């Protein structure tokens, strides 16, 4: 658990996003660079002023892709760190950039991420792992196990889970960056191809390509770089945890549904904010069940009741607890290295009041949460 006290206040000054989808004619480094250019343009920061860069990605596209992506902007000699932390790689890069500044080491940092996820079921282990014979290494099968258990314990109907996708698609239909923009009914979702019962295809996030970037600055250094705080969004907390012993004794795939709790508690403590202060939420909805259990682990609803909040429309745009306002993983798609920073992009855009047709009214506090294999969890809080 995080025992360090934040020092300098950190703000996000610029965000950039490349559309999520399939871009077969663009290599990973080019994809990554394009989001970086957007983020620099967003805040008018000069590349030569950036003092450190963290790059999140998972799949192998050669060594030091972060350096390759940034070399085209100029060789400035700064530390560039390539970060792999499963589906939390992007949010981990952001966490490192935050701590690099709040600790006093840097004034201006870049966090960016990109991915080209291959199609088909996502596995965690290497191709020669015994897991391949055992059959337990299958991300969506893991979510399906949790989903059946959740439905059995809470009485949640299949329609409430499908509603998570319906809501995600509605939000994404307002978002030109989303991989999947078509809207669906509950019936469409439930009758889509079964992947791992009770999960159907439309309840699983698409494997995607895309990139995202964020420029972070110490608030007390804004003036030194010609920046002002008119569009700056404060990072109120950035917490990162790995797995806690949960009694399940380590079969790697039997992961705990509520592993987000320690990171959530740390983030609330760091920020002095609580679940009641949060106006909008981005969570790791790799599958429909993921969104419900993350909402509960973040203490935004009581345990076992996020499905009711969803069924009642509370998590939709216009509800009192808007979740995954840009479409989330389910509709934006999930390029692992980019996802965590895509959540930062959406939160910052909303808190600036620049989200257009999907703007949440009076949004002042936003939360972003990402999960990854290894029980990695990040929770960040932002405020205006």
């Amino acid at each position, binding site marked *: 658990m995080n025992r360090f006290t934040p020092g300098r206040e950190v703000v996000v000054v610029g965000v950039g996003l490349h559309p999520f989808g399939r871009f077969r004619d663009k290599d990973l480094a080019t994809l990554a660079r394009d989001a970086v250019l957007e983020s620099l343009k967003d805040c008018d920061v000069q590349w030569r002023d950036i003092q450190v860069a963290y790059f999140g990605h998972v799949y192998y596209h050669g060594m030091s892709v972060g350096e390759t992506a940034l070399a085209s902007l100029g060789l400035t000699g700064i530390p560039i760190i390539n970060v792999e932390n499963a589906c939390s790689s992007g949010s981990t890069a952001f966490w490192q950039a935050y701590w690099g500044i709040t600790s006093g080491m840097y004034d201006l940092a870049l966090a960016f991420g990109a991915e080209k996820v291959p199609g*088909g*079921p996502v596995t965690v282990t290497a191709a020669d792992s015994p897991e*391949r014979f*055992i*059959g337990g*290494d299958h991300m969506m099968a893991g979510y399906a196990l949790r989903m059946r258990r959740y439905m059995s314990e809470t009485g949640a109907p299949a329609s409430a889970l499908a509603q998570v996708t319906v809501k995600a698609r509605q939000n994404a239909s307002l978002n030109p960056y989303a991989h999947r923009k078509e809207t669906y009914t509950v019936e469409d979702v439930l009758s889509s191809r079964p992947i*791992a019962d009770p999960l159907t295809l439309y309840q699983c996030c698409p494997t995607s390509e895309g990139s995202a970037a964020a420029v972070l600055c110490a608030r007390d250094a804004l003036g030194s770089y010609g920046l002002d705080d008119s569009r700056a969004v404060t990072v109120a907390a950035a917490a990162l945890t790995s797995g806690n012993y949960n009694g*399940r004794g380590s*079969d790697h795939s039997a992961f705990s549904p509520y592993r987000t709790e320690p990171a959530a508690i740390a983030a609330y403590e760091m920020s002095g904010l609580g679940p009641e202060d949060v106006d909008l939420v981005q969570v790791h909805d790799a599958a429909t069940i993921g969104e419900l259990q993350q909402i509960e682990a973040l203490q935004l609803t009581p345990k076992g009741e996020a499905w009711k909040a969803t069924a009642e429309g509370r998590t939709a745009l216009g509800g009192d607890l808007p979740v995954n306002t840009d479409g989330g993983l389910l509709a934006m798609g999930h390029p692992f290295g980019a996802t965590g920073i895509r959540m930062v992009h959406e939160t910052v855009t909303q808190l600036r009041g620049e989200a257009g047709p999907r703007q949440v009214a009076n949004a002042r506090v936003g939360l972003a949460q990402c999960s990854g294999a290894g029980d990695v969890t990040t929770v960040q809080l932002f405020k205006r």
Partner: protein
Amino acid sequence: MSTHRNLAPVSVDPARLRLDAADGSAGTLLGMRCLDCSAYVFGLAVFCQACTSSRLEPADLSRSGILYSYTIVRVPPSGWPGAAPYVLGEVELPEGPHVLAEVIGADEEDLQIGIDVKLALQKVTSGESEKPRIVYKWTPANCGQSEMREAHN
């Protein structure tokens, strides 16, 4: 036709399954018990996952447990050597750990959270030159099949 049947089988993962017979017809799930906090871990370990103590003793785990959850995997991951769909079960052992493995010998209507399951071993081969591997599986406790089954892939 194939030569692999003459090769001695190996455990799919010697850190988790010990073969108790050379032909792989008997085996035991391996675990560790912490002498300080009594927590169990599935598989061999050097430190306790609950309290980080290094005072651990090997402990053979139970051959039966309760089905905590299950899914029917329609689209298998790459490298899966078996047929699809297959049933994946998360089983809670009396010692605490949850163990994921395929559930065999069950009709879909037999599957239900909370049913008793028992350990089953299956010989799995993939490729002519590979030694057959003994893979641990679960099967409903009321399933009358013998422990050892052979998969022909």
